[in-house]
């Protein structure tokens, strides 16, 4: 009963805070928050594969990059394209990449899956450097036009050089993405997904096709990673090999997911938040951000191997088991 009232209140509070965020915290922190939200969504998309299906990808930056380059190229080359279609192109580009790769990569799992992705990820990184006349090589594609967000005849919000408007756009799109991914985990399909993580053999014996199931999750994960990448490119008005396709771009969401807890939907968001805060604080004293992050990861792996949320959930499960056995004791005595 209490839970039913408290939950909507918390969500409402979050909504209100987000609406007034730019006013309350200023431009600097508004931008910090956009970065956080992009990487949090990215980490959740990675975790849909990692935590919910048991598939670890070391090359998700390629989807992030496809989203970014897709949107940037569309805005640069297609005259008069509106903002939403350009973002849509980034999303679809990443989705298409996932669709093409899915038949290959869903036949393997474990280490092979991780390594195949490392290879593909590096391949696209190198391609982005080599195909200079399309991708701009090392410089990437910068300062491409960013149209205003318009609903013809109704509203027009300029985006270029307007971080507050961009903040709202990003919040809406990322919010919808997160909600959709969360919703998928609550559908019958989401149940099959966690079933695969726990026990592939049994899923097969119940009559579910494993490669097809994995393929759908893979495409969902790739597409939303692409959306995050698209927004990231717009946010910086720049997409580059190092910024959007580099190995660190593949690793950081995995690390965030592990710190927050891969077993939970919201874990990767907490993990991203922790790293964002650490990064902010560390920057004030030193440039060795990676060092501090590495140490954090080691500490988490040692003392809370299933992350922040994993720790909370284990406690919950133990409580359930305890109450069940207690109920039985009371019955027998």
């Amino acid at each position, binding site marked *: 009963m209490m839970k039913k009232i408290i939950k909507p209140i918390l969500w409402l509070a979050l909504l209100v805070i987000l609406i007034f965020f730019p006013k309350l915290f200023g431009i600097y922190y508004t931008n910090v928050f956009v970065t956080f939200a992009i990487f949090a969504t990215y980490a959740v998309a990675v975790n849909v594969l990692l935590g919910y299906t048991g598939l670890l990808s070391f090359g998700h930056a390629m989807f992030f990059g496809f989203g970014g380059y897709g949107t940037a190229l569309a805005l640069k080359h297609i005259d008069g394209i509106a903002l939403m279609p350009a973002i849509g192109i980034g999303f679809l580009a990443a989705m298409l990449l996932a669709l093409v790769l899915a038949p290959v990569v869903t036949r393997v799992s474990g280490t092979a899956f991780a390594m195949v992705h490392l290879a593909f990820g590096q391949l696209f990184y190198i391609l982005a450097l080599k195909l200079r006349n399309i991708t701009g090589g090392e410089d990437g594609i910068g300062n491409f036009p960013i149209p205003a967000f318009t609903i013809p005849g109704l509203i027009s919000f300029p985006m270029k050089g307007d971080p507050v408007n961009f903040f709202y756009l990003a919040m809406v799109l990322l919010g919808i993405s997160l909600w959709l991914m969360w919703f998928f985990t609550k*559908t*019958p399909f989401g*149940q099959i997904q966690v*079933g695969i993580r726990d026990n592939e053999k049994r*899923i097969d014996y119940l009559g*579910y096709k494993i490669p097809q199931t994995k393929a*759908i999750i893979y495409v969902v994960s790739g597409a939303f990673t692409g959306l995050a990448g698209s927004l990231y490119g717009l946010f910086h008005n720049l997409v580059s090999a190092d910024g959007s396709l580099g190995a660190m771009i593949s690793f950081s969401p995995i690390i965030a997911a592990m710190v927050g807890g891969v077993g939970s939907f919201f874990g990767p968001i907490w993990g991203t938040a922790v790293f964002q805060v650490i990064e902010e604080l560390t920057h004030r004293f030193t440039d060795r951000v990676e060092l501090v992050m590495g140490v954090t990861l080691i500490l988490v792996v040692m003392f809370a191997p299933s992350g922040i949320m994993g720790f909370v959930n284990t406690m919950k499960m133990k409580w359930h088991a305890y109450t*069940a056995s207690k109920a*039985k004791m009371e019955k027998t005595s």
Partner: protein
Amino acid sequence: MNILETKDLHHDFSGLKVLFGIDLQVEEGERHAVIGPNGAGKTTLFNTITGTYHPSKGKVFFKGKDITGYKPHKLARIGMGRSFQITSTFTRLTAFQNIRLAILAKHGIRFNLFRYVDKMKDITRETEIMLERVNLINERNVPAGLLSYGKSRALEISMAMATDPELILLDEFAAGMSRDETHNAVAMIRKMTEGKTVVIIEHDMDVVFSLADRITVLHYGKILATGKPDDIRDNQDVKDAYLGDLHV
């Protein structure tokens, strides 16, 4: 009619021969027990029938159809279900969620990304009815990995039955259960498999003789005898090879 039939079924593991030409016949509606000493190849027989392995030679027929080499999910969809000797549940999902996956499979709900599974009232009700029938309703919200041994075995076999298959293969369902738990499991299987065909692998002769309509004895990868329980009990070969030491 034979619902399940194997013809000259062979299997080997990279050179180690385990099955030598098995001709198993299971009639529709019967409860058939496969018995034999450890390492006789009973589980391997199940594995070649249900698609874990492709047999190295021979054929398997289900409902008159050649199903040799079919994958497990395909067999599940045409009405074959099985349980495992070593418990194989979804350890991090609750008992309820475990059974629900089987119920969803039974209804062919696979790629539904558009509805809250928790709000599918019919599925929830059917899952709960199943949990009640197999006496797991008190453990509804306990993760399978935290269930007691007996309860996790009960979950294991009820998942095989929850998809409502026509043919159910149960590999040592009572393994490691206490006397009482075995007794309950036998009663449960009797009740839940009425009108269906069941093949059990079992070491406990009390269970075998109380449950089986017919028995096949497997010995070093070959069928030693097949017949009614009384015939098997009196069969001299079987006594010499196997039952003799078990004092039935």
